[in-house]
């Protein structure tokens, strides 16, 4: 183990930053592709995203930094008992937001104009009566990156808090910085790459990636809740000891533990796919059910779109017939 560079901390920072950067860069790409003729609106939305990122980063640094300071001074695993609940809830919220966002992005292909108009409208109608959907719609591009960065940042802080117990102080800063840079770079490459790929194909690919991440988050959320419950039965330290509820366990591997500090590759699979070396009936079913819900939603979206197009085609015909009549 290098004394100036802590590999586990590098992988933690890299993994968390990549996750955040992917989502943020996709949003930036999306906004750049959709808003093509309104540079002011484009700049505003990009500002939203960056402000969201920075605010999320700032909050996570403040909370996380305070947490690490308290952690060090208390030197006790106070957080351990509720850490899983926290992680689980955060993962679930992120999953729902990312799923809705991704499916919305899919639909956006067909209603590009409507989206552009809607966004612009929401921006300009600052004084109009604000319904909740209007508000979240207006600030969606601020909230989503903010919550994402907040979640990833806090996760990183908690993991680092746990890992720095063993790591020497001087091995931390370099690993953190390199992890941050590497993660941001990966996000940037995805962002830049977007302009070279056909618009459509890029959206599909990024939607696929996001849904994969969200599916993994759903499984991770279930896993966290189950670990919390098991920890309460067994009496704390369930995560540390690597134990799990044997009832309903589906697989438990000696390798591939994403929580191990030196398992960088597996940690990556965990962040992209939700991979874990321990799987239960709950996490497997949850994962499959998530996809089932997504599949049904997409099929439903398609049926609705077909019906709408058919109706629009009828109207168009009717209108042109009317034109003919009027003449």
């Amino acid at each position: 183990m290098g004394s100036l560079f802590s590999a586990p901390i590098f992988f933690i920072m890299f993994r968390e930053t990549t996750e955040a950067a992917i989502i943020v860069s996709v949003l930036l790409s999306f906004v750049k592709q959709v808003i093509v003729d309104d540079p002011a609106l484009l700049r505003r939305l990009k500002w939203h995203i960056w402000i969201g990122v920075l605010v999320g980063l700032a909050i996570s640094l403040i909370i996380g930094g305070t947490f690490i300071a308290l952690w060090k001074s208390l030197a006790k695993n106070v957080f351990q008992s509720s850490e899983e609940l926290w992680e689980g809830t955060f993962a679930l919220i992120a999953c729902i937001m990312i799923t809705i966002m991704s499916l919305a992005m899919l639909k956006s292909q067909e209603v590009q104009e409507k989206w552009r108009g809607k966004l612009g409208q929401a921006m300009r109608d600052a004084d109009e009566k604000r319904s909740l959907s209007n508000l979240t719609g207006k600030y969606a591009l601020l909230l989503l990156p903010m919550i994402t960065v907040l979640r990833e940042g806090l996760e990183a802080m908690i993991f680092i808090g746990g890992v720095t117990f063993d790591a020497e102080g001087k091995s931390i800063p370099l690993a953190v910085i390199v992890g941050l840079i590497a993660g941001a770079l990966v996000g940037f490459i995805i962002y830049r790459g977007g302009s070279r790929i056909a618009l459509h194909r890029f959206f599909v690919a990024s939607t696929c990636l996001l849904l994969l991440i969200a599916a993994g988050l759903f499984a991770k959320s279930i896993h966290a809740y189950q670990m919390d419950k098991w920890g309460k039965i067994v009496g704390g330290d369930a995560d540390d000891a690597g134990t799990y509820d044997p009832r309903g366990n589906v697989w438990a591997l000696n390798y591939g533990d994403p929580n191990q500090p030196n398992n960088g590759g597996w940690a990556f699979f965990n962040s992209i796919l939700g991979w874990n070396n321990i799987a239960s009936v709950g996490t497997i079913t949850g994962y499959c059910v998530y996809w089932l819900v997504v599949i049904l939603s997409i099929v439903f979206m398609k049926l609705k779109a077909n019906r709408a197009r058919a109706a629009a085609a009828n109207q168009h015909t009717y209108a042109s017939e009317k034109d003919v009549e009027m003449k």
Partner: protein
Amino acid sequence: MLVAPVKALAFLLGLSAAAHAAVVTYNWNITYVNTNPDGLMDRRVIGINGQFPPPAINVTLNDTLVINVVNQISEPTTLHAHGLFQTGNNQMDGPSMVTQCPIPPGSNFTYTIPIQQYGTYWIHGHNKGHYVDGLRAPFIIHNPAEVYHYDEEYTLGFADWYHDEHAVLLDEYLSIFNPSGAEPVPKSALINQMLNTQYSFEPGKVYRLRIINMSALAMFHIHIDGHDMDIIEVDGVDVTRTSVKTFPISAAQRYSVLVTARNTTSNNFLIHGDMDPEMFDTVPDTLQMNITGTIIYDATSPLAPTELIDWGEFDDAALLTPVIPMATSPADDQISLTASFQVMDDYINKATFNDITYVAPKVPTLYTAVSMGNLSSDPQVYGTYSHPWVLKHNSWVEIIINNNDAGNHPFHLHGHVFQVVGRGEGVYDGSTPYTYFNTTNPLRRDTVLVRSLQNVAIRFQANNPGVWFLHCHIEWHLQAGLATTIVEAPEAMAGILTVDQTHFDHCKALGLPSSGNAAGNQGLDLTGQNVGPNLLPGKFTTKGIVALFFTVLSAVVGLGTVVWYAQDEELVLGKEDRR
């Protein structure tokens, strides 16, 4: 107070021993008793003849001890005289399903034991943790010609004490909800299974204190306010007089110390037994970790204040030397045992030696040895999970015990004292030569502590044909399977051991076979043997592969749906562009 009876008995034995070897008989009905030894909780305990604590056994070298046992509790039970060699008498050693079927409730069994050694020992139940429920007592063998001179002696049996019955606690310990294998923490500590013991001291006299640890789990640090202790005996082996201020004693170990009384009677003093918190998973604030007995010089004198003591480091093998020297011999065979704990495929945290957890066979191992003829030298007949090692008669054996666990373990070998010839760090893998102690007269004892992540090398000669249990003497760990079976000189057993009919009758009464291999069959056919859990596979099982398949399938179909949806859009886009 145990003072008067002990003094009287010692005096009488001193007289009689000079005369002839006696047959000393004890009639022990093993019964339940309801009592409250630590003053904190009434509970049911196991006592003798309706009394608790059970009385000590006192015999003299060359006596023959006869214990007529009647089992009047509701579970089968046995008695094991801890530390007795039982030379040519293995069938009286006592561990259940190793040398006998346990005595069924309502049945009798007579233990006849020729006394061919002397020192401080103890006797305890050896089935299902009965000794933790109270079935234990000191077993003192007097030597008519003691090596050391002393005026009087007292016996102090330290032990931890629980409030729940052992069977209840065992269910909680060996449970899927205890994956870390945390041992139940005792509720208090006792001396001779009582509180408030007192020992009368007179100025100018020298006293021998026989100190026994009869615990299920606890290690005690012993020290006496205002007095030093001179260790003179270790597990029945006389050692050169060594002065200490304090020493640790692990479960099942014994030490005798000489204490010189002070010149004045102006104070009384406390004898301390402090439990070591390292042995406990947690230490609740309410747990009183110390037990004391009082040395009374004068009933009216005030008690001297408790001294602060630093437990320090104590290495028995480095500090103590046997009085009767015995050099080591090079070993003909070396056995390596690595102890560790992990959750097994029954999802319970169990203990293993070399990845095998001990499970008792269907036939007591001794009965297999005496009924299998030539096959008795084939370890297979004893079953996989009794983890047998077959030794050749009179060969010298070295066992290296590696403790690959976070806890400290006292390991006990029945039927022998062994030489402690070396200690090392970590697991000894044999890639480099072992570093032995540089001594021609190493310490001998029958229960040796191996600290966490260390190893110890012990040696003995296989000169006592019989089946001898080798196990951790923390009762929880024995139940969790930290045991192995030494089958010593099976080829010589038939000529030396007599197993009488009562043994086999008891097996029959319990519905167990009393001959044949570990499964009760003939030859090497072990179908039906008792099997234990194994290590978790740690890889994909069929269940896992199916689950993985479905997750991948869901993801592929899900992503496919996304592409399908978008595919249509591409066509639509194309159409709109063309308009």
